[in-house]
C-alpha cells in the first residue's frame, strides 16, 4: 500500500504555518456523489448523513437501533435537539457536533499513480459544561441508541461545579451552508478528475526532459458538520481542494526540488497552472542545484505573500489565540491596545474569506464566521477565541473554536490569516534594498508566543544587490528574529495579494486546515 507518499513524506507537501505538518487534504471519493451526484449534494448541505434525498423528512423520533446514516436530516436534528434538552436537565449547557470528513487524493509522478483516501474521520462529540469546565464524549457509533447512550452517560457522570459562569448559546435558528464553486469536484466523476491530474502531469513533464521526476498531487476533502445546541441547529458542507506540482533535478551529487501549490475552499477553478509558471519553476529547480548557504547575518528582505502570511500567523496569529492568554503563555496579553509594529502592519484572521483554504461558515462551537482585525495600523486590537476563553476572559467571541477531528477538543485556532495589502509594486520594494534577499516559497514556520521569537524557513532566496535581483540563489534560508523588531522593521507593503493552503498545528499536534497570505512586504531579519 503505497498511499500517501506524496502527501506525507515529500517536503513539498508542507505548506503553511504554525507548527507545520504535511497538509492533510484527504482523499477519497464520496461514494454518495459517485452514485447520486447533485441530489446527494443538496441532501448533505441540509445535513443528511446518508447522501439520500431529503424528501422523506419527518419530525418523529427515530426507531431504536436506527443508524444515523439511515436518518433523514430532520430526524437527526430532532434526535440531537432532544438529546441536548435531556442533557440540559442536569447540566447548565450542552451541545453536540457531528463531523464527517472524506476526501480523495490523486498523486501521479513519473513512476507511480495513486488514488487513496487520507485521514477520514467521522463521529459525534457531546459537550457539557459542568459549571466550571467542559466534559466531552466522542463516539463513532452513530446509531440512535448509541448516540443516546453516550449523551446520557456523559450528562449523568458530569461533576457539577456551579460557580456562576453562564454559557451563551449564541445566535439561534436552523441554517445550512455549502461551499460555492464553479467546477464542483464532487459533481465530477472520479475518472474525469483522474484524467485532469494525468493531463497536468503530462503537461508539466513535457516542460523539461532533464528533470529526474515530476510529481503532481491533487486533493479534495468534503467536511460535513452539524452543530446543535439549545438555540440552533446549523449544518455546513465544506469542500476544500488543493494541487501541487513539484519538480526534481540532480547533478549527480545533489538532488533538489521546487514546487508550486494552489488551494482553497471551492472548486477546480482554483487549481490552474500556466505553462509560463511551470517553465519558470523547472528553470528554478535546476538553478537551485547550485544554491549555496546564505552568509548568516541581518538583511533587508522582500518576501512573497505566503511568507508574509506566515509572519502574521506566527507572530500575531498563534500569539493571540486567547486560550494561550488563560494559560499565561502569550506575551501579547500585555500589549493589548499597544503598538506592536510599524503603522504598515495590518493583520487579519477571517474564516469567512471567500475561497480561503481555512474558510468555514461557523466554527466547531457554533459561532458564525466573521473577520477579526488583530493588528490595526501597528496596534494590537483583538485576539482569537474559542468558547471557553471568550467566556472566561469576558470578551466577545470570535469564530475560532476548531478541532482536528471528533477525537480532539476544540482550541482557539486560526483560519485564514493574512497581512492586508498596501500599494505599490514588488519592484518598488526590491528597488529599495541595497543588500538583501528576495525570499519565496515557504517551507515551514514555528511560533513562540511567550518568548516572541519567530522562525520561518524559505525554500528559495534570491540575492538583491543595489535594488536589483542578481539571480544567485540560496536554499534553504532560515529567517529568525524577535517579533516586535521584525514587525517594527516593516517598511514596505505592496498592493498584490495571495493566499496559500496549509495545515497548522497547535504546538506539536492538533492539525487543522488554514491559509496564510498577503502581499509582498519588506522588513529586516536575521538569515541563516
Amino acid at each position: 500500500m503505497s498511499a500517501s507518499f506524496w502527501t506525507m513524506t515529500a517536503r513539498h507537501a508542507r505548506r503553511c504555518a504554525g507548527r507545520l505538518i504535511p497538509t492533510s487534504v484527504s482523499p477519497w471519493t464520496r461514494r454518495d456523489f459517485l452514485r447520486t451526484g447533485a441530489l446527494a449534494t443538496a441532501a448533505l448541505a441540509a445535513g443528511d448523513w446518508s447522501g439520500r434525498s431529503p424528501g422523506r423528512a419527518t419530525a418523529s423520533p427515530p426507531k431504536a437501533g436506527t443508524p444515523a446514516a439511515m436518518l433523514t436530516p430532520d430526524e437527526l436534528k430532532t434526535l440531537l435537539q432532544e438529546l441536548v434538552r435531556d442533557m440540559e436537565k442536569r447540566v447548565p449547557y450542552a451541545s453536540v457536533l457531528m463531523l464527517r470528513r472524506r476526501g480523495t487524493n490523486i498523486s501521479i509522478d513519473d513512476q507511480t499513480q495513486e488514488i487513496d483516501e487520507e485521514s477520514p474521520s467521522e463521529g459525534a462529540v457531546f459537550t457539557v459544561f459542568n459549571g466550571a469546565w467542559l466534559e466531552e464524549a466522542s463516539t463513532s457509533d452513530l446509531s440512535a441508541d448509541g448516540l443516546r447512550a453516550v449523551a446520557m452517560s456523559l450528562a449523568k457522570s458530569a461533576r457539577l461545579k456551579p460557580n456562576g459562569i453562564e454559557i451563551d448559546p449564541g445566535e439561534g435558528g436552523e441554517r445550512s451552508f455549502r461551499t460555492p464553486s464553479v467546477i464542483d469536484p464532487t459533481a465530477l466523476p472520479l475518472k474525469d478528475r483522474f484524467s485532469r491530474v494525468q493531463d497536468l502531469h503530462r503537461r508539466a513533464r513535457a516542460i523539461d526532459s532533464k528533470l529526474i521526476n515530476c510529481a503532481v498531487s491533487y486533493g479534495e476533502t468534503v467536511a460535513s458538520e452539524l452543530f446543535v445546541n439549545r438555540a440552533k441547529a446549523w449544518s455546513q458542507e465544506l469542500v476544500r481542494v488543493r494541487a501541487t506540482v513539484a519538480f526534481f533535478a540532480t547533478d549527480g551529487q545533489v538532488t533538489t526540488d521546487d514546487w508550486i501549490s494552489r488551494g482553497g475552499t471551492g472548486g477546480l477553478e482554483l487549481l490552474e497552472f500556466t505553462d509560463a509558471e511551470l517553465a519558470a519553476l523547472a528553470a528554478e529547480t535546476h538553478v537551485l542545484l547550485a544554491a549555496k548557504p546564505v552568509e548568516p547575518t541581518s538583511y533587508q528582505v522582500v518576501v512573497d505573500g505566503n511568507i508574509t502570511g506566515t509572519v502574521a500567523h506566527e507572530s500575531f496569529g498563534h500569539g493571540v489565540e486567547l486560550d494561550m492568554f488563560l494559560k499565561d503563555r502569550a506575551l501579547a496579553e500585555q500589549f493589548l491596545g499597544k503598538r506592536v509594529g510599524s503603522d504598515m502592519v495590518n493583520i487579519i484572521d477571517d474564516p469567512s474569506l471567500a475561497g480561503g483554504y481555512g474558510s468555514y461558515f461557523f466554527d466547531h462551537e457554533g459561532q458564525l464566521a466573521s473577520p477579526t482585525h488583530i493588528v490595526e495600523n501597528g496596534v494590537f486590537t483583538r485576539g482569537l477565541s474559542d468558547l471557553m476563553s471568550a467566556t472566561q476572559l469576558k470578551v466577545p467571541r470570535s469564530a475560532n473554536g476548531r478541532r482536528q477531528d471528533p477525537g480532539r477538543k476544540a482550541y482557539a485556532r486560526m483560519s485564514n490569516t493574512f497581512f492586508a495589502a498596501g500599494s505599490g509594486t514588488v519592484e518598488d520594494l526590491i528597488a529599495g534594498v541595497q543588500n538583501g534577499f528576495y525570499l519565496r516559497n515557504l517551507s515551514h514556520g514555528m511560533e513562540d508566543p511567550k518568548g516572541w521569537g519567530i522562525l520561518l524557513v524559505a525554500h528559495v532566496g534570491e540575492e538583491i544587490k543595489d535594488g536589483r535581483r542578481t539571480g544567485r540563489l540560496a536554499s534553504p534560508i532560515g529567517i529568525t528574529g524577535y517579533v516586535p523588531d521584525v514587525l517594527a522593521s516593516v517598511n514596505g507593503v505592496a498592493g498584490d495579494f495571495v493566499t496559500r493552503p496549509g495545515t497548522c498545528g497547535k504546538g506539536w499536534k492538533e492539525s487543522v486546515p488554514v491559509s496564510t497570505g498577503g502581499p509582498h512586504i519588506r522588513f529586516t531579519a536575521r538569515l541563516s
Partner: protein
Amino acid sequence: MKAYQDVLTSVPGVSAWVLRRSRSTQHQRYLLHDRPECERTVEETTLTVTVFNQHEGGQGEASFTLFGADAPLARSQVEDAVFMASLQSNPAYALPEPAPMPAVEIRDPELSGDHRRVLDGIQERCFAAMAQEASAAGQPARLSAVEIFLDRIESEILTSAGVGASKEETSLLFDIVVLARDGDRESESHGEYNGRRLAQLNVEETVARHCRFARDTLKAELPATRKGPVVLTAGTFVPLLTPFKFATAGASLYRKMSPLVVGQPVLGDRPVTGDGLTLASDATLPFGVESTPFDQEGLALKSTGVIDAGVFRAVAASKQYAEYLGVAATGSWHNAVLKPGSTSLDELLDASTGPLYHIVDFSWLNPDTIRGSFSTEIRLAYEITPSGTRPIKGGSFAGNVYDAFATAHFAREMELRGDYHGPVGIRFEALQVTGSA
C-alpha cells in the same frame, strides 16, 4: 470479519484485499494551571478495506474506511473501490505471505485498566513535583498547562494472501508547559513524553528539567556567532535522522528521489572523522512508539540494519517497493535505532579545548529531507567554556546533515524516546550558530 470477506470475494475485479479493524478507547485530561480545563472520552471503531485490481495496464489499489462497530460493508462500496483501483497502472506486486509474527511488547497492563485512576495518579505526581518547584528559592516556577492522553487499541488484520493477525497496544502522551518568573519577566518550557508505558514516564524528572529550562531561559542571551563544536541532547537531534530515513526508504529510491546506492557510503566521499553512522529500523523495539508485529499489508516485521558503519546496507521497503526494487521486504521505516559511541556524555560536553554550544531545545528542527540542509532557531542552549556555562537563546543553527554526521561522536549512554532508541547526545564538530556579531 467473515461477512466482510464474503462481500469482497463476491465482487468481480478484486484481485486481492486487506481488511483492518481497529477499536480504540482514549481518555484525555486537560489542566489549566492547577485546575481542570476539560476531560474527554473517545471511543472509535473503524474498518479499513483495501482492494487491489489487476488489469492490462498493471495494478491499482484503493482503500476506504467504515466507522462504528459492525458497520455494514456494501457491495457497491467495494465496486467503487475496484473502479478507483482500475484507474491506476502500477507494476503488480503480491501481498505478503503468512509468516510467524514476532512477539513485540507494545501493551502496558497498567494502561489497559482503569484510565481515570491512572490519570489521577499522573496528575497527583505532577502537582507534587510542581509544589516543590513553586517553593524553590529564587525564581519560583508554576504550571501553565498539562495534557494527558491514555489510549488502548485492539486491532486485527486479514488478507486475501492468508494473513490473519491481531495486536493490543497502549499509548501515553504527557504534555506539560511550565512557567518561571523573575520580576516582570516570565518564560516557559514545554516538555512531552510520548510512549507506550507508564513506568517509562518520569513525571518528577520531567517537571524538574523543564522548570530548570524555564528558569535558564530567563537568563539566556543571544549566542555569539561561531562555527564550532555543538552537542545536541534531549532528543533535539532526532530530526537530523530524517534525511537518512528518507534516502534509504524503498519508496524514495523507486521514485529516484535518493542518490544513495546499496553498498556505498551514505556520506559520499566526505572524510569521516567521527564515529561513523550505524542506523537500524526496528519494528520490534520493546515499547517503541513505532513498534508493531506486522505492517498494514500483514508483513511480519523485524529489525533491519539499514546503515552499518556509514555504509548503506539494506533498503527499508514494504513488500510493494521491495518487489519493484528487487530487494528483501523489510517493512518501511519504524523505530530508528542508532548505535552508541564509546564516549560519555560528560566527555562530549568537555570544553577544555575550546568553547562549545550544548543545545537542549529548538523552535523546530526540520531538515530538508532531500538535500539534508537545515536552519532553525535555538530555543534554549548553553555556551560552555573553560570559564563556565551560560544559557543562550534566539540564535540560529544551520548546516547539512550529511556534512554534520561526518564529524559526529555519539554518547555511550542510551535512551528510548518515542520512536528513537540510541545515544542520549551527539557532538558535531563544526556547525554554524549565528547570533550576535
